[in-house]
């Protein structure tokens, strides 16, 4: 009988895997162990191999995803993943995937939850009791008879988690459970995960990008890149490498990054803070608060076009869907040419409905929408397509040609441009996005990052005067989202109007000059970004939180609002005790 304390819930021993016999390994020689009750966080950019690690935990690899596997994955100290099937291993290792849509296939929440427990033949009375507990735990009791697809993103993911917990697996694998949901939903799911880990002592392997929310919830952290482990240890130990982790394109806690930079520039900081409270305690004593209070606002970050011309004019817009849902009500909005605007709000706030009116995908139930002088109710598809470029979050939604060149020419052919002009525009957009070398390739065979660039280029070929970016961070890693936003900045410099739909406050703060916050189909705040972050009440109403550096500034009683780590770094250096405080 093995010593229980030495039995690992999950053990990877020199695990390597390649999808298909000919392809290179996506993870290489990974060895790691999860003791019982341990919470392990794995993070890394796209292509790091995180999902492969998750799939190997319950036997999806090697049984369902075929390829070349080396090494051993052992569950509960005795079950070799090669010898047991997925449904058998899943009884011990429950897996929650990132997209709630594909995990919910029962007609009601209740049936969704009991599905797994019934499959494992658990006693009916136990299932009923556990279902009530899980409905309560996930706050879904009132929704028990609803179709899971009618729930909000956070509720859907909570439902999927409850469905996994129904058969009480000893180990939980959560593969980016919050990547497709809004901040409230993310907080709900992560709080639930933390509660399960703490109160039930459940072993948990969590793959996530949102480190800010997780730093106090996990026992150990691993950073992966290109199939290898780069760093491992406690959160404090790993985040000692915060600047390097930031450089490989991962989202890191802003205050940790800020403190690391300050330390590198000579500040006396022993332990890097992980959250705003710790940052306040660490940096507070090192700052001349009077000097900080006198510092001016940071200057504007980029070209301010200040055009008088109205690019988007929305008057008394109301949109009611077929089922009677009023998504937007009596909304008025003006956006000027050359503005860089963020439209923020939780899922269901009406922001997507609003922007779908900009290129005529939706027509107003009442009111008018005028874009670049075109009434969207009357304008043709061609007119709207060349006026408003819409970049969707998932490039697979639009790629439909077998050559990148044809993909880029798709919209141009639809509007009937001559071949000479098509050729010129395709080459110009390809050069802009650095994909000229891909023009003869099949877009379906490209990496996700390359596909995203192809999708963006195919919109840019239309040379729209207004560019709408739909949730550039949802389902993406930080690096890829940043690439798209950096491109938007370049286009903005050339005079293009940029509208970003997002619920990522860090992204809005870093890039956008104006913030429009929506809730319940209304605009509850419309202000320049710095001013918006001072409107505590509107932020509270929409459950949005300012970036960590903005919160830190407020806690340090800085009168302005820092929007980025760079701005905070510059101000704090000016206000450091002993620094010469010139104005």
């Amino acid at each position, binding site marked *: 009988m093995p010593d229980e304390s030495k039995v690992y819930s999950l053990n990877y021993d020199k695990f390597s895997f390649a999808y298909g016999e000919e392809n290179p390994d996506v993870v290489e020689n990974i060895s790691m162990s999860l003791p019982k009750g341990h919470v392990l966080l794995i993070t890394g950019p796209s292509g790091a191999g995180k999902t492969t690690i998750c799939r190997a935990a319950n036997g999806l690899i090697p049984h369902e995803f075929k390829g070349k596997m080396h090494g051993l994955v052992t569950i509960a100290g005795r079950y070799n993943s090669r010898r047991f099937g997925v*449904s058998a291993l899943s*009884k011990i290792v429950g*897996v929650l995937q990132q997209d709630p849509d594909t995990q919910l296939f029962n007609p*009601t929440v209740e049936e969704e939850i009991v*599905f797994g427990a*019934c499959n494992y033949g658990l006693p009916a009375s136990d299932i009923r009791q556990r279902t009530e507990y899980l409905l309560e735990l996930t706050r879904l009791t009132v929704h028990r008879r609803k*179709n899971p697809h009618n729930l909000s993103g956070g509720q859907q993911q909570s439902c999927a988690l409850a469905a996994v917990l129904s058969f009480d697996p000893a180990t939980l694998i959560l593969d980016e459970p919050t990547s497709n949901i809004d901040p409230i939903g993310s907080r709900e799911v992560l709080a639930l995960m933390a509660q399960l880990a703490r109160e039930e002592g459940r072993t948990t392997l969590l793959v996530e990008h949102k480190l800010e929310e997780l730093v106090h919830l996990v026992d150990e952290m691993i950073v992966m890149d290109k199939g290898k482990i780069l760093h491992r240890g406690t959160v404090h130990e790993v985040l000692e490498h915060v600047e390097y982790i930031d450089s490989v394109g991962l989202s890191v806690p802003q205050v940790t990054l800020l403190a690391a930079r300050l330390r590198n520039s000579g500040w006396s900081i022993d332990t890097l803070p992980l959250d705003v409270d710790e940052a306040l305690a660490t940096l507070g004593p090192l700052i001349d608060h009077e000097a900080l209070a006198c510092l001016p606002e940071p200057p504007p970050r980029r070209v301010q076009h200040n055009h008088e011309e109205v690019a988007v004019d929305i008057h008394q817009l109301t949109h009611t869907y*077929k089922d009677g849902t009023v998504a937007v009500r009596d909304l008025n909005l003006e956006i000027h040419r050359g503005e860089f605007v963020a439209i923020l709000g939780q899922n269901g706030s009406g922001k997507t409905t609003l922007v779908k009116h900009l290129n005529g995908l939706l027509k107003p139930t009442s009111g008018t929408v005028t874009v670049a002088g075109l009434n969207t109710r009357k304008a043709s598809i061609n007119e709207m397509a060349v006026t408003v470029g819409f970049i969707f979050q998932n490039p*697979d939604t639009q790629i439909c040609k077998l050559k990148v060149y044809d993909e880029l020419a798709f919209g141009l052919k639809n509007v009937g441009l001559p071949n000479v002009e098509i050729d010129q525009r395709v080459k110009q957009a390809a050069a802009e996005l650095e994909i000229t070398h891909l023009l003869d390739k099949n877009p379906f065979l490209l990496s996700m990052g390359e596909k995203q660039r192809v999708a963006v280029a195919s919109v840019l070929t239309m040379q729209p005067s207004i560019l709408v970016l739909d949730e550039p961070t949802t389902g993406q890693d930080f690096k890829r989202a940043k690439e798209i936003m950096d491109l938007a900045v370049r286009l903005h410099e050339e005079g293009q109007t940029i509208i970003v739909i997002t619920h990522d406050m860090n992204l809005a703060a870093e890039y956008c000059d104006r913030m429009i916050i929506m809730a319940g189909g209304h605009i509850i705040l419309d202000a320049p970004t710095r001013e918006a972050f001072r409107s505590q009440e509107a932020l509270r109403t929409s459950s949005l939180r300012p970036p960590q550096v903005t919160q830190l500034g407020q806690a340090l009683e800085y009168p302005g609002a820092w929007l980025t780590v760079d701005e905070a770094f510059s101000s704090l250096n000016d206000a450091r005790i002993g620094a010469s405080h010139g104005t």
Partner: protein
Amino acid sequence: MALELAYQDRGTVIHRLDPRVKLLWWLSINITLATWNDPIFLFLLLVSVFIYGRVAGIPVKQSLQNLLPVLPFVLFVLIANIAFWRPPYPASAHLIGYIVHPGTPVIPPIPFYWETIVFSFGTMLRLLIIVSSALLLIKTVSPSELALAVTRMKIPPEIGMALSMTIAYIPVVVGQLISVMEAQQSRAWKIKTSNPITRFRAYASISIPTFFRSFQAAEAMAAAMMSRGFGYDIDHRTDLEPTKFDTLDWIMATIFAAFMVGGFLLGFLGIVQYTFTMHVLGFS
């Protein structure tokens, strides 16, 4: 739209029926129509399908709206039938005219009879019944119920899983189709063209990304089902509400079975053939 095509427990008498009875209803309709080709009888069969849907709480208007996306295909079949189907025993009195006139060089004459029109309408109605009955089955049988019903009928659980996934998957695919159409429309995609080749190419721009994304989603859904123990030990699966074949189930099953046998025989014996409508229209 996507959720309109999903199962929703409306608590009606149809929803309370055992899934096997609902499967039997679907089979009775489809087996019957395989042997029928008379448009009057087929129209009545289509009406009965809508009535069944109404009893299941689905408004007739919604049932009709759900047929809109398949109308182009149905019209194509109608036209193809009119162009190519000829009665086995053509009567010159029933001749309307010629699609290709006698004496046209190279191409043989193609006569056009009243029977052709009657039969073609029958074929069109058949297609509408197939689609309507399938949609109603999807809307009234929950995917998990269907999987269990199938496995209880001693059919391998893999088939149950495939069937269940297919039904669960429809709203997902429809949702993906809508987002693909929006993405393409944003790049000036449109299908308002009368040129069939251009039209086909326009549909390809929609179907390729939808297929690609659907394939990815199917893979994820299958993984999710297996990760929740589907097929672990089907014989000892817990039945929280053991479905009993109660009196109503027996009555309905008997009616559907009788209809299936009767309908099949009527068709097989040549009674419900297009000739019936021809008689009604006054053609001997």
